[in-house]
């Protein structure tokens, strides 16, 4: 149902803001399931990465949203200058082309998905707090991104990416390596034109925001 403007009296009352709740997020988030493989990545991010060519990468929206380059992408999106899938492609290519040894990475990518190099019985820290404190070094992930393919999954943004077909396309080309895969995708985009109507992309962005 479309939200209608409140009348003046209600608007006046509404200008008075109720106090902000103090939530113990640790308790609430403890109920959220850990993405598969995340514990292993925390325990030994480099070790698990080198052994898991089937791993899935999650681009964390909160981490990339504040980045200036991402803001520019979104601005382009809003202005209609670029199709959503092209932005997705540009974002993923940006991630894949980051220098391996960059000391000041402009973004962070967290790993999830099946990790095979870690003993599942090995004790791992399961708390969300430890996740935020022990965030894996992004350069490790960049190296892996350069080596093969990227599959975006498991959050509002990434599921949207997936709906555009990006994840499936790239993962299906995992044997060819990132360069060939992205070039193939680029040529597919060029031949097919804009795969998603702009209005739909904007609506999705609005819903997310």
């Amino acid at each position: 149902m479309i939200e209608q403007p409140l009348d003046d009296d209600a608007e006046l009352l509404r200008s008075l803001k109720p106090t902000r709740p103090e939530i113990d997020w640790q308790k609430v988030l403890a109920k959220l399931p850990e993405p598969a493989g995340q514990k292993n990545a925390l325990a030994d991010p480099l070790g698990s990465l080198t052994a898991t060519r089937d791993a899935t990468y999650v681009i964390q929206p909160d981490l990339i949203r504040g980045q200036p380059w991402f803001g520019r992408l979104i601005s382009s999106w809003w202005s209609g200058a670029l199709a959503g899938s092209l932005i997705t492609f540009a974002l993923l290519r940006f991630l894949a082309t980051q220098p391996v040894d960059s000391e000041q990475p402009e973004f962070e990518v967290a790993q999830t998905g099946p990790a095979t190099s870690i003993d599942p019985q090995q004790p791992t820290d399961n708390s969300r707090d430890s996740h935020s404190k022990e965030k894996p070094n992004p350069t490790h992930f960049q190296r892996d991104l350069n080596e093969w393919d990227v599959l975006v999954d498991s959050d509002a943004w990434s599921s949207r990416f997936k709906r555009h077909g990006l994840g499936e396309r790239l993962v299906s080309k995992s044997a060819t390596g990132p360069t060939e895969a992205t070039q193939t995708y680029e040529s597919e985009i060029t031949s097919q034109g804009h795969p998603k109507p702009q209005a739909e992309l904007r609506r999705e962005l609005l819903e997310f925001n």
Partner: protein
Amino acid sequence: LSPITESQLRVIVERYGRGLTLFARQWCTNPDDALQEALIDLVDLTEMPQSISAWLFKAVRYKALTQSRAERRRTNHHSSAAEQKRAWFDVDPSVGLDGEMVTGLLTGLPELERQIVTSRIWGELSFVEIAELVDRPVTTVFRIYRSTLTRLREHLGVADSEPDTSTDTNIELRGQS
């Protein structure tokens, strides 16, 4: 797996948290706890409700009432008395209303009226959602909302004119029929 993500939870709390806390304050002295418990229940759901905000208002009310009953059973009421002194609204000089006065007006309302007004104004619920929340017909909810708002206006010193809410009500009533 829970179908909701951490970022979605934070967006929900950012948008509805204040209204939900105010709503819970009607019954209990620790509304933050009521909201927190409701959020935990939300995370536990295997399927998201059609309207998360409406679901949360119901859940928060249940938690607040449960908490209220527990508070009444306690022998030591010192902490509860201290909690009750906490402000319901942020102090903002740029707003032309006194938060304490509005708090007093709200606490003086009958429970049904208070639920309707708070869930509508600070909770952004539609009249249809409020009707379900308070288990009354939509027309009754709107009539109560309108009359309560009129009474509040007299105390707030707002210029005397009928609240123009006919448009949104008509739309909602049509949608329900």
